[in-house]
């Protein structure tokens, strides 16, 4: 490998698998909202509190974070030629995505506390 820490095939496969999962999940949520309408915020909270749904939303969140990380990583590798610039941008993106992920998981967990 010419670039330690960065891989080729694995991210490429993860990006595709996560894309399929995200697409299927969004269609499922959209159809659910369509069938179950009117669907207010309490209904959503109750729906999210069902453990099965909660787990799938968690998986959806992981898929979105992975997909976003690989996509932005690709853009950074394409457009930022400077190694220090790349490192800084990837650190910034990684931190933002990690923070967003933690915030998302906190929200998923809070449903049970309420």
């Amino acid at each position: 490998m010419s670039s330690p820490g960065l891989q080729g095939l694995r991210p490429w496969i993860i990006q595709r698998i996560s894309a399929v999962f995200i697409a299927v999940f969004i269609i499922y949520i959209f159809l659910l909202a369509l069938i179950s309408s009117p669907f207010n915020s309490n209904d959503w909270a109750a729906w999210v509190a069902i453990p099965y749904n909660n787990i799938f939303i968690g998986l959806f969140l992981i898929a979105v974070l992975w997909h976003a990380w690989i996509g932005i990583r690709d853009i950074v590798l394409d457009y930022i030629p400077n190694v220090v610039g790349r490192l800084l941008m990837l650190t910034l993106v990684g931190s933002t995505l990690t923070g967003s992920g933690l915030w998302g998981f906190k929200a998923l967990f809070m449903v049970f506390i309420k």
Partner: protein
Amino acid sequence: MRLRIYRYNPETDKKPYMQDYQLDNVSSDMMLLDVLLLLKEQDSSLGFRRSCREGVCGSDGMNINGTNGLACITPVTGLKEPVELRPMPRLPVIRDLIVDMDQFYKQYRDVKPFLDVKDPLPEVELKQTPEERDKLDGLYECILCGCCTTSCPSFWWNPDKFLGPAALLQAARFIGDSRDQATEERLQALDDPFKLFRCHTIMNCVQVCPKGLNPTKAIGDIKKAMVKKSM
């Protein structure tokens, strides 16, 4: 016929410039290379490469009205005037339309474009079935003109790291060859974020290839082979 040609002689010019030309004795059955040869009689300082003049050697690759192509097989009819000629993008210019192809050839060497056979070589030739041979069609015909690689935005962004469509087409040609015994090493060498995976299926390479080849499909086939190997 009116032409605008990129001119740059690093020994005498501070920076590149576009020079306008007018040629009157151009007939409709001419190829662009014929026009350039006429022009060369008018201005002997104009620099461009050419050799076979029939789309086989790949010497006269250039950017013609914004699209890479070979001057020798580009008919003048249908070309919008003034015909704007520039060197192939993203390679250092040696002079006028002549580019330094070192980087391009380095990428070609990087994919080891030769059969790697571990077994003792037979006294006769290494045989293939007709079906195995058919798999090489669309891969071996590349003339290394550089039109595809220099039209690829991924190459413009990472010219020293992304191998480019021409070299990857050659990689696919040897990965797909039933006689080659280094498939695993070849795939392993390409499993890197830059060499292969900078290709975003933009397909400029397919659009400009003067031999009608499809490097994008070849790159896709390499990715499929990698997935198959990893499973």
